[in-house]
Each structure stands twice: as structure tokens, then as C-alpha cells.
């Protein structure tokens, strides 16, 4: 057998996006789990150090300070757990947060497969919410089974348009998608504020930029009496199933993967990297647009400035934590949704600042992006064969 040749090197011409793609898609589930554990661990240390009772107990010596710190961590983390999965209401809040996170996460995962880094989730969420919301309050006289799907589709199209543009620019001029999507985020943020002051959009009798109320015929129905979770989570799961097919089973998905892994070989096989880039970014925009739409015709009911609240950026965390896979992205969307919901409960019950959740999220990203750190931390051995991969020629 000649299969004992150690693996050959990856193609030489790699950009940062390609390397990120390889790092994210190549990470093991175990490493990801360890990254979350490490982030929670360091979060606990930060929490213990910043708790007031720890600092007070420090006057009595190191021992009491340690005890006080541990009890602060215990109270905060148990509030976090309670607030995310401790009750039906908590679960409802977790699912509400997870709905948009899953969708914006997928909006990063899809282009990542094609070697593209979509930082534009924020702008795409805004566009989706804006267009979906406008259809929701401006179109009248339709029954819910028509009006609601119409608003949702409109949200997807709005996001798709904002995703298409950087894809088109990259395909046509080579403009880097990271730059153009970031700039579009700002553009959309201010376009939103301007649109919200237009007479047909702004709620009558108000001077601040806030839109009219989405009609009931376009609102996502709540699933349970008295709880905020709505049909958006069903939408998110259905979309995730579609994305699973799209990435892993469709012919276009294979083009995305091939272009992402080796554009030269994809071209040689007759694929069109430029068209694939546009497709990936457009689909990504549609997914983020759906997130914005689900938010506006669901939970919020009207469009406000800043309604996107960094959800597009959270999507990056979700997709990276989900290792760029669809199932992983759904699971990490649920996990970060739980952190979000639990974080609010933690702030209310134990007085721990919500910022800690942001710190934990940021730490997760650091550990995912730097797998070497996690390996060193937990002494995980390098993946099989990696040692032999350091330098390889064409030969054996």
C-alpha cells in the first residue's frame, strides 16, 4: 500500500480567510468543547476577582477571599443556569435569543464554506428587518397565511440584496468582502435611521425615529400562552434544515466547498468561483435578512434604530463555535442563546454585570481562533499525522 504517505501540503496560495476556514472547519468537537470550558473557567476567575465581596474579604486574608470568590461564582453561574434552562419561561427566553443567533450564525457559516468571511450580518439583519417590517405594516388587507410569509420572504430578499452587493464587488473587482461588508454595516445603520423618519414609515405623532406597528396579520404567532417564544424558532430550524441540504447535499454546495478549499482546482473542474462567491454572499444575506425579519415581525413588532443590536456580529461567534457546520451552528446558537437569556437572569438575581457574558463569548472566540492555546492548556495531542505534515515534498 502506498497510502502510508503522510498528507501532502495544502495549496500554497492561502489568504487569511482560507486559513480561518481551515482552522474553523478543521477543529474537532472536543477542542470546541474545551474552548467553551476554558472560557467559562476564565470567566469564573474574572467574576471572582471583580465581585465586591471578594475584595472585601481580601482584608481578612487570602483564604476568606477565595471562599467569597467561589461563592460569588457559584451564585452567578447557578443564576445563569436557572435563567437559561431552569424553567419553561427561561427556556422560552433561550429559544427567543437562539432564533436570531441561529440565522445570523448560518449567514456566516455559508460563506465560510466558500472561503469568504461575512462580517456584514449586521447590515443584512437591518435590511431584512426593514423590508420585512415595511411589508408587515404597509401592505394591508391580507390574511395571516399570506401576509406573514410575504413579509418573511421580503425580509429574506432585503438581506439578500445587501449580501449580494459585496459578493458582486468581490467577483467583479476583487474588493475584499471583509472591508465592503463592514462598510455596508455602517451604511445600513444610517440608512435605517433616515428611513425611520420618512412620513410613510414613522409612527404618526412621534418625533423620534420609530416605525409603525407591524399588522397582526404579519406577526409571527406565539407558541405558548404567556411566553415570548414565537414561530420564529420553527422558521430558524426549517431554514437550518434547508441550509444543511444546501451545503452538504446540493451541487451548488459542492461548488461552494470546492471554491473555498481550492479555487484553482474548482476552476479547472469547470466551476465558476466568481458566480459561487456571489451565490454564497447572497444566500448569506438572505439568512441574516430572515433573522432581522423574524425579529421585527416577531418579538419587536416595530422597527427601531439599533434593533439589530450586534446580532450580526454575534453570528460570527455562533458560526465559529459551531465549526462552520450547520448542526454545530444550531447547537452553538442554542448555547449562546442560553448564555444571553441566562446572563440577564444572572444580572437581575446576583448583580453580576451582563458584560461577563460578553467576556465569555469573546474568550470562546479567542480559544476557537487559537486552537494551539487550547491544546497547550489541556495538553491535547496534535491530530494524528500532523507532526509529519510540517514539511512535505511531492515525494514520500
Amino acid at each position, binding site marked *: *500500500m*502506498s*497510502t*502510508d*504517505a*503522510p*498528507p*501532502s*501540503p*495544502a*495549496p*500554497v496560495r492561502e489568504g487569511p480567510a482560507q486559513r480561518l476556514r*481551515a482552522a474553523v472547519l478543521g477543529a474537532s468537537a472536543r477542542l470546541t468543547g474545551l474552548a467553551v470550558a476554558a472560557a467559562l473557567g476564565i470567566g469564573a476567575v474574572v467574576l471572582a476577582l471583580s465581585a465586591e465581596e471578594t475584595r472585601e474579604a481580601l482584608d481578612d486574608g487570602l483564604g476568606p477571599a477565595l471562599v467569597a470568590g467561589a461563592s460569588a461564582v457559584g451564585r452567578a453561574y447557578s443564576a445563569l443556569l436557572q435563567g437559561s434552562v431552569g424553567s419553561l419561561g427561561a427556556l422560552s427566553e433561550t429559544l427567543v435569543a437562539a432564533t436570531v443567533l441561529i440565522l445570523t450564525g448560518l449567514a456566516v457559516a455559508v460563506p465560510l464554506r466558500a472561503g469568504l468571511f461575512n462580517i456584514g450580518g449586521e447590515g443584512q439583519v437591518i435590511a431584512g428587518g426593514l423590508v420585512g417590517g415595511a411589508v408587515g405594516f404597509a401592505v394591508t388587507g391580507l390574511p395571516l397565511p399570506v401576509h406573514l410569509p410575504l413579509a418573511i420572504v421580503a425580509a429574506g430578499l432585503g438581506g439578500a440584496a445587501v449580501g449580494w452587493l459585496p459578493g458582486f464587488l468581490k467577483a467583479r473587482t476583487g474588493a475584499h468582502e471583509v472591508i465592503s461588508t463592514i462598510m455596508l454595516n455602517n451604511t445600513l445603520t444610517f440608512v435605517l435611521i433616515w428611513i425611520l423618519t420618512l412620513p410613510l414609515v414613522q409612527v404618526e405623532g412621534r418625533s423620534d425615529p420609530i416605525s409603525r406597528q407591524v399588522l397582526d396579520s404579519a406577526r409571527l404567532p406565539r407558541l405558548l400562552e404567556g411566553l415570548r417564544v414565537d414561530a420564529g424558532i420553527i422558521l430558524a430550524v426549517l431554514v437550518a434544515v434547508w441550509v444543511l*441540504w444546501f451545503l452538504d*447535499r*446540493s*451541487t*451548488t*454546495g*459542492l*461548488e461552494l*466547498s*470546492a471554491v473555498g*478549499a*481550492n479555487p*484553482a*482546482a*474548482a*476552476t*479547472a*473542474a*469547470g*466551476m*465558476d468561483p466568481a458566480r459561487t462567491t456571489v451565490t454564497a454572499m447572497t444566500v448569506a444575506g438572505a439568512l441574516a435578512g430572515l433573522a432581522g425579519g423574524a425579529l421585527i415581525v416577531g418579538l419587536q413588532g416595530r422597527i427601531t434604530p439599533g434593533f439589530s443590536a450586534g446580532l450580526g456580529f454575534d453570528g460570527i461567534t455562533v458560526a465559529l463555535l459551531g465549526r462552520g457546520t450547520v448542526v454545530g451552528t444550531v447547537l452553538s446558537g442554542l448555547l449562546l442563546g442560553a448564555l444571553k437569556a441566562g446572563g440577564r437572569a444572572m444580572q437581575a438575581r446576583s448583580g453580576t454585570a451582563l458584560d461577563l457574558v460578553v467576556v465569555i463569548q469573546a474568550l470562546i472566540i479567542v480559544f476557537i481562533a487559537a486552537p494551539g492555546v487550547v491544546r497547550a492548556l489541556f495538553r491535547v495531542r496534535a491530530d*494524528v*499525522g500532523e*507532526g*509529519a505534515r*510540517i*514539511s*512535505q*515534498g*511531492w*515525494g*514520500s
Partner: protein
Amino acid sequence: MRLELRGITKRFPGVVANDHVDLTVEPSEVLGLLGENGAGKSTLMNILYGLTSADEGEILLDGRPHVFADPGDAIAAGIGMVHQHFMLVPVFTVAENILLGAEPLDRLGRFDRGRARDAVLATAERFGLPVDPDARVEDLPVGLQQRVEILKALYRDARLLILDEPTAVLTPQEADGLFESIRGFRAAGRSVIFISHKLREHHAIADRITVLRRGRTVGTIPAAEADAQELATMMVGRPVVLVVDRAPAAPGEPVLEVRALGVEDPPGTALVADVDLTVHRGEIVGIAGVEGNGQTPLVEAVTGLRPVTAGEVLLRGESIVGRSRRDILRAGVGHIPEDRYTDGVVASFSIADNLALTLWDDERFSNGRTRDFDAVAESARRVVADFDIRTPSIATTAGSLSGGNQQKVVVAREFDRPIDLLVAAQPTRGVDVGSIEYLHQQIVAKRDEGTAVLLVSSELDEIQALSDRIAVMFRGRLVGPFPAPVAKEALGLMMAGVDPAEALGGRAA
């Protein structure tokens, strides 16, 4: 310095890459290391250079055991290695690259350019390897980049130089230059381990040849006594047919007609000029030439990877100029790209996906939107068996296969769909002897089925073994084709630009 490796054993999960390998290199000796892809040559050299550690065995230098934890230890002990993929910083100058990590500093602790230049020039002169210390590495041809790598090792006072397939990236002339340098080191008392697939290169440069097969030392023989057939047999483990057995061609109607083809990139710079060429059904037309004389753009233009700026390309009488690569492939053109790592396979994809890559959305492997995994797997299993691709499973990634087996994947993919024209560029580059034999037989078999074959190779042996007609490319222009056989000397002269009438010695062209 005398090197001795004793009982080196390295196990990877599931495989023994090196199984009690013994090897010695005497002072002032060039040891040829020969073996198929996957025989364990690179693993052995990585152990010697400290890139990975052996599970068992010891490394002795002048009789004293050494342990190399990293390349730094190996370099300090006088071992230098030139990898096949160069480890140079493209935007740095030659001097900066050579001195990287050992920079001379001035009194203020800054990089001392003057002393750096002098040091590089002194080393270059001492070993007869002239370079321009101020040239940027990215501007240099591959042969000179390799020279920089060698100087890097020599500057660090390497007494044993490991050259990992050094000729794979070189033109024949550059290879001759390299051999001259190697003889120089030997005369200066240094030793060289020379790794190559090519039997005749071992004959040309090695003093002794050690053959590895499946991780074991098969034997060591003096180069002077080694005969090609014997070496090939040792390497593969069975008798290998080195001469391709083929019947005379029976050419049919034209399949590919290239008329006054021109390729410019960027506009104004002609890469290919005024090329006329016809390839008929059932014949192999070989294009010889030193690399970089327009063969690559010609192949790219014919197969739809590069726009045609002048002339016509006809497939079965219809123009394919301006059509997409996908259309051209589906119209019956098979292409074996010259760089299989870059263009041939997606290393992270499974063998099955790679085998379906050019027909990914064809009805054979999909319903147009959803892929048919059963069809992909079924086809892959059949092809893997038919083409003797050595792999544990069809789900194995292409990147983990040996070079020869990767090339079989590329060839099998093109051969397993209906094609009228096969364009094979460097089809056996970096492939071991056993696989070369197989690939050559396959190409001839394809010809006998009535496919038109355009073969581009920088290996004259390959061109002569396979071609029914032979053309030579020089500076973007095509000379010929002439009916085979054409004498090697005549081809060599035309490759250097000599007029064909003169090169062929008055023979009717």
C-alpha cells in the same frame, strides 16, 4: 562527516513509515535515496533533520549518537536540508533570506547590509554558486531560488546536505547545473543525500544508491553497477516494463485543430504566437520543450482556462473559443493539469468527491440540484478498482494519498467520462516508476480507443516513448510536428531554438 542511521523506526497510526531503516553516508559521498511515493523517504529525512522523532533507532555522526529535537539541533550538527517546496521569504532579498536567523548586526543592533552581502558573496564564491545578493527572491527563476536554499544551508556550515527531489522543479539545463554544484560539494569533502524518483539522475550523480520500499531498506548498491531495470525492480518489488509497448498509430479524422493561435497576457506580451496544430483521432502528438516556452498557456487556451487573443481552436470542427471551461470539458475534452496539487484535486475532499469533480452537476451524479451520493460512491468504488488507486476507502481525502495515486485519481476522473480529446500536461511529474508505467499504458490505451491525445511534457523520454508525432515549443512558437521517432539530439537542439532543418540534419520534415 560520516552519517549512520541505525534501525530507524517510525510508526504512524495504522502504518509503519520507517521499519528498522539502516543507512550510511561516507564523507565526500553522494548517496542516492530511491523509492516510490510513500516508501518512507521523506519521513526518514524529516527524522534526520529533527522535524519529527524516531520511535526507535539512532543517528550517529562520526560514530557519536545524536538526538535532534528540532531542525536547530540538526543544523548545529552540520546537517542542511533543501525542501522541495522552498522555505524562502519571497519579498526578501537573497542576502536577507540566506542570513535569516543568523543576521550580522552593526553596532546599533541593526541588520548590517554590507557585511551580509560580503558574507553571501564569500559563501557563493567558495562553492561556485554565483548569486546576486540584492535580488529579490520572488523575482528569481526556480533554479536560482533553489540555489539560495542551498546557500542558506551551506552558510550555516552544513557538511551533509539533504536534497529532497531537487530536480522536480528544474529544467534539464538547471538540473545539469545542480549536478555540477553537487560534484563541487563532494570535492570539498561534503556529503549529499540526493532524493529522486528518476533513475537516470541517480546514475548521473550518486556514488551509491539506497533503495527503500514500504518503509524498509531493500538494499544499497554502487551506482556504477546499478542497472535501471534492476533498480526499478528493487523499488517496486516486481519487474517493471520501462519501455512502453504500443502499436503504430491509426490516425482518423481531426479532433483538435489549432489555427494561428495567439495568447497574450498581459495585452502586448505574447505567450503563444501563431501556433498551428492538428491532432487526429487515435494519435498522440507530443509537445517537447523547456518549461516556460508557452506550453502552459497553450494548454490553458485549448482547454478553456485562458482567453484566446488570436486565431481559432476547433473541436471536431466547431470553434470552442470563448466558451466556458465547463462547456469545453463537457464537450468531450479531458485535461490532466500539470500541477495536480493546485489544479487537479481538492486535497481536503474525499476521493469519491474528487472523482466526481468535473461532472459534479451532471445528471450522472445529481438530479441537477441535489447530489446523488449513491451514484458518486458506486462510481468511485468501481473507478478505484479499475484504476488500481491504492486507498483504504473512497472516503479517504485525496490529500492523504501518495503523489502517484493522486495522479491516478485525476487521470481516472478524465478517463471515466466520454472524451474525444485528451490534453495531458506533465502527466507523470513527481510520480514513481510503477505508476508511470501504468499511466503510460493508460494513455496509449486511450489512444487506441480512438481518442486524440495532446501530450505536453518536459521529459524527453516520455515524449519519445509515447508520441506518434513530436513538436517542439520554443519562445511561444511551435516547430513541427515531425513524425516520430525524432532523435533526442535533434529535439534538444530545437528546444534551444536551432532551426529545424539544421537540427534534423537535412532530414525531410
